[in-house]
């Protein structure tokens, strides 16, 4: 445990979300958004204790294979088929501070682009040794890592010929419920990223680039697995200096 662990929990409000950096709710090229997008203005206000607080998840709940998608669904002695990769990175906030104890949950298609889900209809084969889910909790420096196979791209019903680039879905819990985030990670060099209607819901190219993990040659394990680095940034929070303290604070 580092000295960070002895720090007083932070209680400041979160920075206002830069909504122009995110996709708007209505993005007609991604057709499902048309009927699922709120049309009224959001009610904007500074976070209260109901959003500043959030649940915590202890390292004790994480099983030994939770961050190893190659083995966590495989039969004993077997492993998932596909390109072996390590995905690692840090969870930071907008101030650049590490977010420790953050719960990350990830899910993905198998190497052929097929999900293990009853609503999935793609003809690519199921891998009997691949479930497709994993999770990790960040350490005191905000670091996480997991091992998996590189997911395949897959077609989806939107336009006549739309394909998702290879991607991994991430769900992130920070320290406050207002930081709750779900996003997707893409892979450096994939030309399909720029053709994807879901990627292109994000208006700013720099924001899209924030979702593309570079190949990390330094962390690549020789004769074993290549590495990709994916850092995640959650909303920052104000220091409580000069702020009205909540009663008893």
């Amino acid at each position, binding site marked *: 445990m580092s000295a960070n662990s002895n720090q007083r*929990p932070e209680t400041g*409000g979160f920075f206002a979300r830069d*909504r122009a*950096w*995110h*996709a708007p709710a209505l*993005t007609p090229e*991604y057709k*499902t958004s048309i*009927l*699922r*997008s*709120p049309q009224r203005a*959001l*009610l*904007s*206000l*500074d*976070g*209260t*204790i*109901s*959003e500043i*607080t*959030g649940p915590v*998840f202890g390292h004790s709940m994480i*099983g030994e294979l939770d961050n190893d998608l190659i083995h966590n669904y495989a039969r004993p002695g077997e492993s998932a088929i596909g390109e072996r990769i390590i995905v690692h990175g840090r969870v*930071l906030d*907008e*101030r*650049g501070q590490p977010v420790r104890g953050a719960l990350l949950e990830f*899910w993905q298609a198998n190497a052929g682009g097929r*999900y*293990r*889900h009853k609503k999935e209809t793609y003809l690519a084969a199921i891998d009997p040794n691949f*479930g*497709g*889910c*994993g*999770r990790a909790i960040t350490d005191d420096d905000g670091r996480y890592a997991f091992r998996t196979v590189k997911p395949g791209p897959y077609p989806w019903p939107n336009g006549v010929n739309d394909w998702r680039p290879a991607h991994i*879905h991430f*769900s992130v819990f920070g*320290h406050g419920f207002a930081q*709750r*985030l*779900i996003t*997707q990670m893409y892979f450096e060099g994939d030309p399909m990223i720029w053709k994807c209607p*879901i*990627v292109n*819901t994000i208006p700013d190219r*720099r*924001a899209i680039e924030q979702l593309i993990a570079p190949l990390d040659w330094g962390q690549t394990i020789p004769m074993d697995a290549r590495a990709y680095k994916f850092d*995640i*940034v959650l*909303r*920052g929070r104000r220091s409580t200096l000069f702020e009205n303290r*909540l*009663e*008893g*604070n």
Partner: protein
Amino acid sequence: MVQELHRLKETPSQTAGPYVHIGLTPNYCDIRGVYDGDLGTAMVNDQTLGERITVRGRILDGADTLVRDAIAEIWQADSAGLYNSPSEMRGTADPNFTGWGRCPTNAEDGYFQFETIKPGKVPFKDGRLMAPHITLWIVARGINIGLHTRIYFSDEAEANAIDPLLLRIEHRQRVETMVAQKDGSTYTLDIHLQGPKETVFLDI
């Protein structure tokens, strides 16, 4: 030139997609043996303090069709109005209450449902008490960034009438979109993603 602020940009949100259950509730979608159980399915135990309630709701799209592939998460105070969180500095919350729940909308009837307790009141930033409420967050295919709203309670009309957040709603007939209706110990609320009954969603 001035000094650099050294701020980072928040990672952009992306839709949870149609297969969100694989990641968040794998046992619900028959991926067994990876985790012991799905997170957020049990908020209470035998010793939890407070009034036991059931909170359930449906999510409807702009054509009034049920959204059956969403995930709802809730976050709430315990019966004394304390959050089970390290950022809670006012006291120690009931250790037998997690305050957090997660539930997919059911593939048949479209309901999410939580067995929980009625939360106590918690203060607004200026010290006024807010009416008892539950924070609700929704993700699904077609939703680009998770939607925040709140669930208030129909039997708290007096407290709701002076709730600092509800008072901020300009179009007063929309207040009821955040109020769950009580029937016995069950509170029910329909979330409308768009249309004339669109729920008030929060940028908070």
